[in-house]
């Protein structure tokens, strides 16, 4: 029972981190049809900025978080203009994969040059240490915080996409880019804004998840497979699908590690194959997929 509770709490927290990072990828994949393997690298950059803000400059956690998100978004916007715009929606997925792998390598080398190969931490504020009691059980505050932020992201995105003008235009562009452009929607601007949104979510997840996905230069390569798995299962462009997929994969992975630790990631990939074999377009057929 104790183990089961641990699995659920850790699995949900882990799943929420996977969700926050992956949903950014899902949104850009759904709209621009770019398989952006550098997405994990963006999350990593944000983590390093937050770590530097906290440890190098002594700024509070919240300030570091905001600074990291702003920095990452601003730093990647030129990349969007220079690189990504060339490969949007092009039928050549291989070119996208290779271009973004190349970009990832460059970022990994750059991070290593600036910060070195050692593990970096983002010290948590006192408010996030300790445990919080929920009924008879208590869970670490950080886990609770992560879960709450994940839930807030789901609601926020849902509101943004379903209830705002931006969301309506975005959905129109996803369904039919040419028609949307013909109706006067500025798709170029929409792409830039969506790219920024996706990068911002990656940054948020990178900072919040530094406890669960430790920061080191190979972060960008190590975890991108996880994020892609969530998108593939959830269906590109599908927010609730991404959330469900991230939670399911997070819990399966955590359960596998708790119960049969010697089999490592076996369960994760076995679940992935089963799901994708049965539902090749994602378990929750995406809006765009």
């Amino acid at each position, binding site marked *: 029972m104790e183990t089961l509770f641990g699995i659920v709490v850790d699995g949900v927290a882990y799943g929420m981190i996977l969700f926050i990072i992956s949903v950014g990828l899902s949104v850009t994949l759904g709209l621009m049809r770019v398989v952006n393997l550098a997405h994990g690298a963006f999350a990593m950059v944000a983590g390093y900025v937050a770590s530097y803000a906290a440890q190098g400059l002594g700024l509070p956690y919240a300030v570091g978080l905001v600074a990291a998100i702003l920095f990452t978004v601003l730093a990647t916007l030129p990349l969007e203009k220079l690189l990504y715009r060339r490969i949007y929606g092009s039928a*050549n997925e291989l070119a996208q994969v290779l271009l973004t792998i190349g970009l990832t390598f460059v970022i*990994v080398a750059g991070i290593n040059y600036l910060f070195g190969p050692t593990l970096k931490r983002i010290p948590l504020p006192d408010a996030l240490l300790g445990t919080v009691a929920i009924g008879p059980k208590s869970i670490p505050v950080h886990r609770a915080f992560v879960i709450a932020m994940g839930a807030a992201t789901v609601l926020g995105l849902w509101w943004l996409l379903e209830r705002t003008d931006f969301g309506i235009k975005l959905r129109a562009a996803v369904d039919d880019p040419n028609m949307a452009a013909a109706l006067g929607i500025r798709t170029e601007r929409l792409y830039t804004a969506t790219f920024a949104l996706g990068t911002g979510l990656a940054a948020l997840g990178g900072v919040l998840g530094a406890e669960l996905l430790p920061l080191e230069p190979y972060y960008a390569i190590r975890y991108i497979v996880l994020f892609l798995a969530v998108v593939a299962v959830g269906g590109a462009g599908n927010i609730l699908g991404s959330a469900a997929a991230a939670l399911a994969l997070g819990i399966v992975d955590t359960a596998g590690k708790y119960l049969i630790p010697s089999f490592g990631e076996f369960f994760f990939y076995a679940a992935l*194959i089963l799901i994708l074999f049965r539902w090749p377009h994602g378990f929750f057929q995406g809006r765009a997929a």
Partner: protein
Amino acid sequence: MSGRHTGAVVIDPSPPVAAHEPRFRRALGGAAVPLLAAAGLAAFWLFPNDLGLMTRIAATALYVLSLDLVLGFGGIATLGHAAMFGTGAYAAGIAAVHLVSDPLVLLAVGGLAGGLVALVTGALILHARGLTLLMLTIAVVQIVQEVVNKARDLTGGSDGLSGIEPSPLFGLFRFDMFGRTSYLFALAVLLVGFLVARRIVRSPFGLACRGVKEDPLRVAALGGSPRRYLVTLYAVAGVFAGVAGALTAVTSGIVGLDSVSFSWSAEALVMLVLGGAGRLVGAVIGTVAFMTIHHVMAAIDPFHWMLFIGLFLMGTVLFLPGGIASLADRLIKGNRA
């Protein structure tokens, strides 16, 4: 756009190489094998101290060649090709430790194992396309790696498998400590593999596979079964990858977990794209370029290497989509214009 469109994004890494190849390119293709053999032998005399590296390059070139069959001629984008390479390497290694020691038999064992894995996994996953297919290939290679890692009694787990001692080739040529036999053996296997691959690519079956790559719907409309062609191609390429793995095992004497890794799959893809997918020479050129530069730069600092290869990769995609092998075409075209 409707759901099916994104799912079936056509992957076209190269300019279409149709049956009406330019005469020049055909001539180049004809001269490729003698040129490769001459270059390989010249390297044997010129760099007697780097035979170990060159042996690895030859075996890797065969592996990338097999990826070229899948990607360049079948349009299957995969990030899990090491599953076949590693299975072949481990099958040959285990057979060498427990059963036989003849190097040619070991290659056959590796090819058989690689082909079987490709046949089974290909039949399972090749109905998917695009991102889903990429994810499935990654999942396959990760599961194979996990299985190899757990079968510690047979494979040595994370310590790797060692103690592979092949008997003399044809009973005559001992695998000497300088690696001369190893290198010449690897070079010969690569050349034979190249010839066989070219035969396959030019056969009616190879043309049908290119047809599937260009337009699966039309192939289906003409009465062909795109999926059957792709699974067959995948299995054939699996044999090549398995032989390449076995060749690495036989010539190096060890097999490690990294031979069934995601990163080894990705590196093969990078080598192929650098050289130019969709033509067999491209696979060899890309491997030689990648591994030579890697050898030189990684000796200095692995992160310099990543920076360099990252920039190189981005440059290739943006400015030279056909890879290094297309440079010759461009030069020729430039001269004519």
